[in-house]
């Protein structure tokens, strides 16, 4: 797979990222402030804490058709 094809596939993907507001979400905020790009496939969902994450939230995202779920905290 050449680089262009790989880029195309990534851009078609949907990844839900459940982020703790105290660390990962704040880091994403900082990355934005520093103009550091990240793939548009990543859809960030802010959580008060990753301890709030329930397996049901992961299942709901996958059932809705996303390609992957990321948990960051």
């Amino acid at each position, binding site marked *: 797979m050449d680089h262009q094809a790989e880029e195309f596939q990534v851009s078609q993907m949907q990844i839900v990222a459940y982020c703790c507001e105290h660390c990962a979400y704040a880091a994403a905020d900082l990355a934005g402030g520093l103009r550091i790009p990240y793939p548009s496939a990543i859809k960030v969902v802010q959580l008060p804490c990753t301890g709030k994450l329930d397996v*049901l939230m992961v299942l709901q995202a996958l059932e809705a058709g996303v390609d992957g779920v990321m948990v960051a905290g």
Partner: protein
Amino acid sequence: MIIAEQKSLEELKSLVGTAEKVLVVGCGTCVTVCFAGGAREAAITSASLRMSSKLDGSPKQVSDVTVQRQCEWEYLDQIAEQVGQVDIVLSLGCGIGVQAIAEHFPQVWVVPGLNTKFLGLPTEQGVWAERCAACGDCILGLTGGICPIARCSKSLLNGPCGGSEAGHCEVSPDIPCAWQLIYDRLTSLGRLNVLLDLQPPKNWRTSRDGGPRQIVREDLRLHIEED
């Protein structure tokens, strides 16, 4: 409370078979508290069956609902409409809940999503232990509040047996010897003399030996049958 465990997804799929419309029914009482069949587990089971059947190439319509108690007609009445719209009901109640649904909705095919295990309590988070065997003739008053019927592997009335070693049962070192527990508790309470009364063989007719059991409270019945 009644303690149960969920069956594997493979077994659930096998039980559901070729049915296309499935209703997963959770129960809001015992099996909610032991994390086996409450609203959360019903939603997870429902989502798992939907995704799994989709991956298998024959997507099913799976929905879920949770009632306060599956073992009472009044709560089952609330889901009558939903039950009437599906091919099969997957009950996440205990064995009583499954049978209550079968009895209350005679036209519906109902299958169990849980294995009902025992009557017990959580000793720590994530650990449940058996405490009562529902023998129908409680002797906890003779044993310091520790049940030798449920907790002694041999259900001895005059224990311990020769297999008790350093406070553990010969069946498994993970099982505390019930009679050691009884002895220790009665000692700490200064009531060891209770053990001087030898217990005669237990009358098991109050337990399963007498067949299926029923209690009739005439003072509570609304309709007293005439002779």
